[in-house]
């Protein structure tokens, strides 16, 4: 536990910039001398504000609100006195406890890894405030209560606010042992607490990196290689330099940067630039080439990820064998705020302002680029306009590029790097393209006797910070959701064939489950149909040993009225999937659009995510996860032709729009277990639930995503 003195010292050591946090409005909030900071996560000022230091980024999933709720709960603070500011880069104090010595947000782990830690931090602060009051009033601490930010001694009627006690509490050593609340005493956890960023995001005042500026700051865009792996051979910047406002044209590792006083000048300057690329080492295959090659690989045995019993023998002896090939395209994340970062370089220090999802990596990468020790690089994490995984890259691409530009122009001016939407969609780091092959055998009664699943695609973890987790040729993120298939099938084989393609790939909201949930949950439905059984009943029978799956499945089915008649032209489909230690079941009610594609009218969703810290945020994440997953299932696809991405903007990389969005009903399975993920687990079940409903309407099993491929217009905006 840190004392206030050590807290102030350790931040001061790392440079003055680190004491300056940024509030939601972007203005600096300075720590005052009489501030009570019992640990790395809480500061209570004499003005009675309680500032929570957010170690996780806020990019929409409600992590600031959630972290603050946990702390405020044990602190017994009043919600109105709570503020949140982003933590500085410090892997020692602000690491993700599920990741080891790395500070970052991902894997739907913000609440799960912070729950115990932040409860203790809040309870410790509360106990210290109580002790300060006890000493001040000369009464036993055991007689003191705390309610909504006020410390009270009922026998004497004495009262003090946190702010009044802060200077006194700051002089005490916080206790090493604290008692946490019994959940029955919770007043914030499990209740509706409004989002802490809700107001600033409703009047335009919330500041994102795109909105951040510094005196004298320049804006840069990079002319990037049209094919992955190409490099700059030469460039002619004559016309670019004539564009009013262009200040520098410099070569950087990822292309040629055009730097200008304003964004529009930088963009015009880039249009005027002529770059000749060396494509000798560039990836020149297209999506269709890869699908073809992957289908061949899917027919050959590969590295085992799971082997229960003897699936081959079971299939050989089966009464009926069913086989299906599934194809999944590359997908871009396309967060609404295009990728960006601001970097300022001084003689012996560097500062970065960005939606930094993994500050530890960004700090190390920028340090390497500018030639400073990591401790001399301050990361100011700002609100990010979405990420869905894109802002967490193993090479800190955006901050690193911005630093390389600042360095290339001599470091005399701060630079904001902006990726245009075209850069974002064509610049890679996609959800990999995959082919799955599934085979299963049924006996004469329709029971599943064997299951063979083979997955072909690129590894996301290879070459990154989690590469060490690849064991025996198995990147767990390629097979998650498939290798841990929960169904009680006696013989199961899951294999992985990892491919080598020069297209940069990345985790995309729910990672492996973006494709494994689809293939396993639609294939199981197909087997149920082949056996003439109800798909819900088949799942129930095979999930007897998985009570959380069963509970979510039963809750969704009951609330959706599974089995009750529907009007003609309307059908239900169901899917259940576990990801990030949460289980989500969804029932989709689907009709058909005039063009024949599914129209999802309504989704009933049940989620078991352990203790529900903020039920309304959980509902929002299920709604948003369903919409995000539906966009990928229905419309979105990055198509490579001879190595070049064909989609340039939202006209061709089609997002979900409001008319496509179903009504969503979310039910939370009551649980007293520790909290598990909510940011991603809403995504995986929606596509298979829709596909299963669509089969009942159309008789068609959709095995290649997105669905829009079924129409002549394809994925283009109609």
């Amino acid at each position, binding site marked *: 536990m840190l004392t206030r003195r050590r807290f102030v010292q350790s931040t001061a050591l790392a440079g003055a910039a680190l004491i300056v946090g940024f509030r939601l409005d972007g203005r600096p909030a300075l720590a005052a001398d009489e501030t009570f900071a019992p640990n790395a996560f809480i500061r209570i000022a004499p003005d009675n504000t309680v500032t929570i230091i957010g170690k996780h980024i806020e*990019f*929409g*999933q*409600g992590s600031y609100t959630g972290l603050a709720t946990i702390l405020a709960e044990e602190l017994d603070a009043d919600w109105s006195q709570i503020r949140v500011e982003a933590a500085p880069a410090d892997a020692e104090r602000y690491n993700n406890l599920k990741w080891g010595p790395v500070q970052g947000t991902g894997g739907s782990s913000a609440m799960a890894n912070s729950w115990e830690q932040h409860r203790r931090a809040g309870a410790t602060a509360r106990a210290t405030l109580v002790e300060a009051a006890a000493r001040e009033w000369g009464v036993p601490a055991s007689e003191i209560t705390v309610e909504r930010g006020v410390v009270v001694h009922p026998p004497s009627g004495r009262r003090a606010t946190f702010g009044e006690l802060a200077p006194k509490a700051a002089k005490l050593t916080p206790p090493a042992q604290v008692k946490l609340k019994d959940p029955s005493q919770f007043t914030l956890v499990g209740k509706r607490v*409004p*989002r802490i*960023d*809700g*107001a*600033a*995001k*409703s*009047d*335009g*005042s*919330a500041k*994102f990196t*795109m*909105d951040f*500026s510094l005196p004298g700051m320049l*804006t840069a865009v990079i002319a990037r290689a049209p094919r992955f792996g190409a490099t700059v051979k030469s460039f002619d910047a004559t016309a670019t330099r004539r564009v*009013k406002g262009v200040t520098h044209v410099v070569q950087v590792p990822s292309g040629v940067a055009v730097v200008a006083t*304003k*964004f*529009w000048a930088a963009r015009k300057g880039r249009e005027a630039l002529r770059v000749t690329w060396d494509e000798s080492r560039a990836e020149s295959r297209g999506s269709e080439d890869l699908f073809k090659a992957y289908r061949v690989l899917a027919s050959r045995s590969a590295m085992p990820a799971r082997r229960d019993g003897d699936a081959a023998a079971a299939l050989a002896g089966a009464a009926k064998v069913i086989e299906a090939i599934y194809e999944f395209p590359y997908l871009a994340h*396309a*967060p*609404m*705020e*295009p990728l960006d970062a601001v970097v300022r370089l001084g003689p012996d220090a560097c500062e970065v302002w960005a939606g930094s999802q993994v500050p530890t990596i960004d700090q190390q990468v920028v340090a390497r680029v500018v030639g400073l020790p990591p401790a001399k690089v301050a990361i100011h994490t700002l*609100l*990010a*306009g*979405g*990420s*869905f995984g894109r802002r967490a890259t193993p090479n800190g691409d955006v901050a690193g590029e911005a630093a390389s530009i600042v360095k290339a122009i001599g470091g005399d001016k701060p630079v904001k790097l*902006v990726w*245009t*939407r075209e850069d974002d969609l064509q610049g890679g780091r996609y959800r990999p393209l995959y082919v799955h092959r599934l085979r299963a055998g049924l006996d004469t009664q329709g029971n599943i006797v064997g299951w063979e699943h083979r997955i072909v695609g690129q590894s996301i973890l290879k070459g990154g910070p989690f590469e060490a987790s690849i064991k025996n040729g198995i990147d767990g993120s390629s097979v998650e959701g498939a290798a841990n298939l929960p169904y009680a099938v006696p013989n199961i084989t899951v294999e992985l064939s990892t491919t080598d393609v020069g297209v940069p790939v990345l985790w995309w909201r729910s990672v492996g489950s973006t494709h494994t949930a689809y293939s396993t949950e639609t294939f199981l439905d197909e087997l149920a149909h082949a056996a003439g059984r109800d798909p819900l009943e088949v799942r129930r029978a095979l999930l007897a040993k998985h009570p959380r799956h069963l509970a979510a499945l039963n809750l969704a089915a009951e609330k959706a009225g599974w089995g009750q008649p529907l009007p003609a032209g309307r059908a239900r489909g169901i899917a259940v999937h576990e990801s990030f230690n949460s289980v989500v079941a969804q029932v989709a009610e689907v009709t058909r659009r005039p063009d024949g594609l599914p129209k999802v009218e309504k989704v009933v969703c049940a989620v078991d995510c352990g203790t529900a810290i903020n039920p*309304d*945020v959980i509902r*929002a994440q299920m*709604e*948003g996860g*369903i*919409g*995000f997953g*539906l*966009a990928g299932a229905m419309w979105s696809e990055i198509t490579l032709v001879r190595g070049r991405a064909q989609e340039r*903007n*939202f*006209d061709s990389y089609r*997002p*979900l*729009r*409001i*008319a496509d*969005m179903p*009504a*969503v009903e979310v039910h939370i399975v009551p649980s007293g277990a520790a909290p598990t993920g909510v940011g991603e687990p809403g995504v995986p079940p929606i596509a298979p639930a829709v596909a299963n409903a669509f089969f009942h309407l159309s008789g068609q099993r959709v095995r290649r995503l997105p669905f829009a491929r079924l129409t002549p217009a394809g994925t283009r905006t109609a």
Partner: protein
Amino acid sequence: MMTFQINGASRTVDVDSDVPLLWVLRDELGMTGTKYGCGVAQCGACTVHIDGRATRSCVTPAAALRGRDVITIEGVTGKVAQAVQAAWRQLDVAQCGYCQSGQIMSAIALLTEIPRPSDTDIDAAMAGNVCRCATYVRIRAAIHEASRPLGG
């Protein structure tokens, strides 16, 4: 030098006539509530009101603004705007929040024209505003909620 009416005030800036209004607002006037999301009028994050109509500022050149009245998220006022922003807060519509200025400006324009919109009206008026967090369920609910105090 060009002079514009923005949020009821006359503002003079030194820009070329082809610079889009979005970048006049953001880079010349420091009004960053209006967002860049696509640059080609496909996402609606840059939506402002020009003479009361929801307009994509990313494809509206400065030259087209002579004699026009521009209202941005920073300057939008009146009972419709208040009702919309209150509903947005009440229902906690925003997730990442980046698209919400544009969503709110489109919603205000819709409710000004149609005080009690149907779901079909909402689909039509909001079709140009993308939210990658897919907050659409709450956007729809908030528009209906905002329409109540408007007596529509």
